[in-house]
């Protein structure tokens, strides 16, 4: 597993992809800086949490996972290099897990650094460890779930995975899921918010969106997305033809 993991990390970390994502994830840090400069420390923690709930969670986090995860397998299909992995005596699930771990790691590191920086800049040291931990935990589980989901999309639609994922993020996770609880049930966002809300302090909770889910339920659903995505991707990789 380790050679594929390392190979994937190297492939993902090169090129302009990393710079684009880093630039995207710098946006909340800059917004927090502007907020603090203009508004001072008053309710700055609430602002950071709102940034997470309204910008990072519905847009930036899934986009980051999308950019890395769709290229982890889809890129190899497009570049016609995947056969150098599949023509080896290794089970297909090993390829999927190695790829998933690599894109989840790079996505998580970037998102968590952005979140931590945003929180620290935004609160100017007045925040709480619990709320920072809640943000990081929600970011972590969100990265895992979205990575699994978009790895599958990249495998299924190697050419159009990025576009399809982009439309999904903007229209579904970013827009439709905010319109009703029913629609939100079928979004990853709702369960990441559930994880966040379960761990925020009561005062910070007011800045977050109300979600009638327990932390445990949220984590179970996100784990199901993670495992389901990996299992379906393994099945798909066994079926795929590399013409």
């Amino acid at each position, binding site marked *: 597993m380790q*050679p*594929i993991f390392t*190979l994937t990390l*190297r*492939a993902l970390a*090169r090129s302009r992809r990393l710079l684009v994502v880093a630039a995207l994830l710098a946006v909340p840090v800059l917004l927090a800086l502007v907020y603090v400069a203009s508004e001072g420390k008053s309710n700055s923690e609430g602002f950071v949490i709102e940034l997470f709930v309204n910008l990072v969670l519905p847009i930036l986090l899934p986009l980051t996972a999308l950019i890395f995860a769709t290229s982890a397998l889809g890129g190899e299909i497009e*570049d*016609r*290099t995947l*056969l*150098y*992995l*599949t*023509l*080896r*005596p*290794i*089970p*297909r699930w090993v390829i999927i897990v190695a790829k998933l771990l690599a894109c989840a790691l790079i996505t998580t590191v970037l998102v968590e650094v952005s979140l931590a920086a945003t929180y620290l800049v935004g609160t100017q040291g007045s925040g709480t460890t619990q709320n920072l931990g809640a943000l990081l935990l929600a970011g972590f589980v969100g990265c895992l779930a979205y990575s699994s989901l978009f790895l599958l999309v990249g495998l299924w639609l190697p050419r159009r995975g990025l576009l399809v994922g982009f439309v999904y993020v903007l229209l579904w996770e970013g827009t439709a899921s905010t319109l009703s609880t029913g629609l939100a049930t079928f979004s990853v966002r709702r369960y990441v918010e559930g994880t966040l809300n379960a761990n925020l302090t009561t005062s910070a909770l007011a800045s977050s969106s109300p979600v009638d889910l327990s932390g445990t339920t949220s984590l179970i659903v996100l784990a199901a997305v993670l495992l389901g995505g990996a299992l379906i991707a393994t099945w798909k990789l*066994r079926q795929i*033809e*590399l*013409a």
Partner: protein
Amino acid sequence: MSSEIIRTPLASPAVSSPQTGFTGRLPDGRAATIEVQNVSKWYGDKVAVSDLSFALGPGVTALLGPNGAGKSTTLKLLTGLLRTSRGQVRVLGESVVNNPKLYRRIGLVPEQEGLYPFLSILEFVELAARLHRMPNPREAARAALRIVELNDVEDRPLKNCSKGMRQRAKIAQGLVHDPEVLILDEPLTGADPRQRLAMMEVFTRLSETGKTILISSHILYEVERMGSNVLVLVNGKLAAEGDFHAIRALMDDRPRRVRVTCSEPRTVAAFLVTAPGTRSIHVEDESVIVETAAPLEFYLAVPQAAQSAGAHLYGIEGLDEDLESVFRYLVN
């Protein structure tokens, strides 16, 4: 040409059409390493290969055919990269579909050029060795690179390599785990003449150690140098299989060209006009080129013609006994 497959099962121990079911054996009793039975592959209404059946044993076998004949599709079916629409493939007695363990014993050198540009040559081949769980992957990679003569440039990134170097790197990754069956899709593309010769020697040497080497190529003189066993695909169908010399001998209905080298070529030509089977005749420097429909009778008539012309006969040579002539005939 009729649609019948030209087969020479007795001419070559390494190639033969299987009878019914997988026997695992060639006609001479040796184990078959690759068995293909009634295999077809289609995409929608486009048929890529149709009803292929053959079995191969150790040695070099060339897969020939014009562009679009189905060579790459066939090789991908043999390695499990594609699934058959109908029929079955067995390699080393096992199905290739969803059988990753079998890849310990199979190597593929694909035609496509896609590589990991950020890896060095050594890293690329070592990656293959690691995925094959070789005990010492770096040393195995270096050994493979020595075979393809890339050890001096092992640290060069693939993105900075010439096409010939990338091609040899692909060959190295295909043989790094010492496979019993090595399948190569146009492996000599981009290599310079010296490298081509060296690679052909490598393939021949590997085949002599009991490995099965299946090479697709359209450069016929190279195939001819490596061995005489061929599979010829035309429009997705098997047009001929076996020893190409024997295939040529079976194609009796085709006129053959013969060069008669002699003194007094014009006079000899005048006598050869009446020789049995002569279709056309022309004089070229010190020789006479004859197209005959009855080669055996013609060969017997040549000394008589030379004697009648009072000429010295220096040699008689068939001009289209080579693989290229066989191939040209089959695909046309």
